[in-house]
């Protein structure tokens, strides 16, 4: 087992990985950019190395600096988290050359699944069901349009190197195709340095259901059931839950088997996720495989009791899985809400800023994987996700009620977050019944009315009393000063300011 691991990431995921490492008795090394000096992951680590300026291309994405930080600190393995270098085969290869263990699949498996067109070919060979699409990247808009017309609208234009919804566009009509095609190419080029896109048929009203995989280097591959991630907006997941509320046990088993076969087809090692589209008739199609830890991994941990990060590390150290497929048990239901610093009422714009007050919910069945604290800052340079609020319940109903309770308990002031939006989603009848698909959020947003606040009266009362108490405090201070007792401020100007605030000096 490793003595010391460097976490090549930031924010909540770096913190989450460190927690497992600490429990395993492994020393932790954080890396940070100049903008993250104050970040929680830096404060939590045993050692921390600054790897460059705020821009991630000059810090968190600099492979040379990260490998250098391993050498300096004597870390013998790297955990990449998600995003940044987690699916970068070149980084995995450079680690290999530097004799540093990359906690993740081989560069070959990463490449095979990372290039979506290649992944599709491989999956087709392995007998994994696929959505109809162009076999490879298309460069010419006219050629792509012809392919789109053949498979029939709506279609999706997707970046070959993509992920997280970047470089992805839905097109409903031939007339809109060329603009969307060019837009996706541009976005793909700027996000991934690779503008290749392909076109595939858009499955109407699907659910997004993904299977968690664990595979060791001895060839054991198991799945840890599914997560339903259909509550999303612009292909960014907002809320995930497990189990999928509509999946039959028969199809669950089948999807699990197919996911295991998909992982085996690329000799996968470590934790991975096979994403599927599930239509209303329970047909499912392979979407992509994410060769890393997912943001939403905690809900799988909550229902199975398996720590996925610990297994990533054990597998990277060459240990074999200690459980067979039929020993993986699930219990109850779990939900995750992604808490973002964003302004829902203004087009979900990122709203980074200072965290002045933060108290996370506690109590039975609540897990808050956060990357911030009271007094910290959500910097403008990175993804504005600040926390993943997760709950477990004995069944879906209890989990939903528990999540609403946890949201009510969550205190975060100083910046605008989507906390209240989560409550609204969780109270929507379609979410309560479980009858939703990936179109649910966009369709609902079309007609959504901004919700009425329930506690306006209490808020006003509290604001008034807070102001009244401030005024009385200021008055007490100035009257002591005025009596010549020496207790007041040394500055006459400050005294004057206070008096003016109180309205006692005209």
């Amino acid at each position, binding site marked *: 087992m490793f003595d010391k691991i460097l976490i090549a990431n930031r924010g909540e995921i770096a913190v989450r990985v460190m927690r497992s490492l600490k429990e395993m008795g492994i020393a932790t090394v954080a890396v940070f950019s100049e903008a993250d000096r104050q970040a929680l992951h830096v404060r939590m680590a045993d050692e921390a190395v600054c790897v460059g300026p705020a821009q991630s291309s000059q810090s968190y994405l600099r492979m040379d600096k990260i490998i250098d930080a391993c050498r300096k600190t004597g870390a013998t393995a790297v955990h990449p988290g998600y995003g940044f270098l987690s699916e970068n085969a070149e980084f995995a290869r450079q680690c290999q050359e530097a004799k540093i263990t990359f906690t993740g699949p081989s560069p070959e498996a990463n490449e095979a699944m990372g290039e979506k067109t290649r992944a599709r070919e491989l999956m087709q060979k392995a007998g994994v069901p696929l959505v109809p699409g162009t076999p490879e990247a298309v460069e010419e808009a006219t050629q792509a349009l012809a392919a789109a017309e053949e498979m029939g609208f709506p279609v999706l234009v997707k970046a070959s190197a993509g992920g997280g919804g970047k470089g992805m566009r839905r097109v409903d009509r031939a007339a809109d195709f060329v603009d969307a095609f060019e837009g996706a190419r541009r976005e793909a080029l*700027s996000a991934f340095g690779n503008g290749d896109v392909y076109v595939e048929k858009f499955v109407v009203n699907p659910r997004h259901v993904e299977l968690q995989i664990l595979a060791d280097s001895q060839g054991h591959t198991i799945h840890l059931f599914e997560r339903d991630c259909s509550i999303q907006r612009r292909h960014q997941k907002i809320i995930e839950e497990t189990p999928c509320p509509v999946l039959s046990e028969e199809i669950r088993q089948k999807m699990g088997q197919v996911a295991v076969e998909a992982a085996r087809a690329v000799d996968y090692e470590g934790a991975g996720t096979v994403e599927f589209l599930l239509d209303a008739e329970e047909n499912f199609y392979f979407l992509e495989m994410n060769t890393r830890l997912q943001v939403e991994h905690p809900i799988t941990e909550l229902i199975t009791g398996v720590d996925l990060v610990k297994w990533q590390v054990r597998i990277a150290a060459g240990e074999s899985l200690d459980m067979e497929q039929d020993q993986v048990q699930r219990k109850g239901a779990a939900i995750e809400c992604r808490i973002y610093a964003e302004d829902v009422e203004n087009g979900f714009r990122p709203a980074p800023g200072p965290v002045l007050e933060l108290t996370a919910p506690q109590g039975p069945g609540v897990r808050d994987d956060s990357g911030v604290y009271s007094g910290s800052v959500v910097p403008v340079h990175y993804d504005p996700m600040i926390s993943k609020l997760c709950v477990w319940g004995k069944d879906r109903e209890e989990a939903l009620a528990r999540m609403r309770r946890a949201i009510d308990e969550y205190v975060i002031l100083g910046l605008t977050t989507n906390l209240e939006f989560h409550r609204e989603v969780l109270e929507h009848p379609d979410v309560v019944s479980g009858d939703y698909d990936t179109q649910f959020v966009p369709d609902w947003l079309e007609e959504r009315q901004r919700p009425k606040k329930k*506690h306006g009266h209490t*808020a006003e009362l509290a*604001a*008034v009393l807070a*102001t009244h108490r401030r005024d009385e405090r200021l008055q007490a201070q100035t009257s002591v000063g005025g009596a010549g007792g020496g207790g007041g401020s040394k500055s006459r100007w400050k005294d004057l300011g206070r008096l003016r605030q109180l*309205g006692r000096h005209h």
Partner: protein
Amino acid sequence: MSQRRQYTVFNGDEEERSWQVETLAEGRYQVVTPDGETLEVDAYSPREGRLHLLSDHGSADVVFVSDGGKVDLQVRGERHQVEVYNDRELRMRAAGAGATAGDSPELVSPMAGKVVKVNCRQGAFVSHGDPLVVVEAMKMENDLQAHRGGVVESIEVEAGDAVEIGDVLVIIDDGE
């Protein structure tokens, strides 16, 4: 020794709401609400920014941050931003009232990012809500829309420019 003080509250609209407070004892207040109802409130503050209110058995825990007259509060997971002014502050506010942000001809960037595309020309007529500039931030493209209708007087950015929060993108003359 205690006097009754008056506070004016704005809660999301321009309607003035008047509250009155009188201190009865340390942490105990008599409050007259804007509807004329009289409440007795027991307020406990473990530290600055935290207030727990008890009123006729009703219990509410409140967290707040205040900045000038603006108070940002959270009550039972619900966020409120209200403005509270004592009489003196209210007079100063009235004296200082001038042009508001909505009257400005400048469309400013609400985010830091890169201009991907400019969708308008100088001299063009635009309506409120027309998409004028595409700014990429956090690797997503955002359509920034006209904040008012009018004629595009000038365009201050071009594709490829880096912009910061508050940078002027387009100036729109509404003819007034």
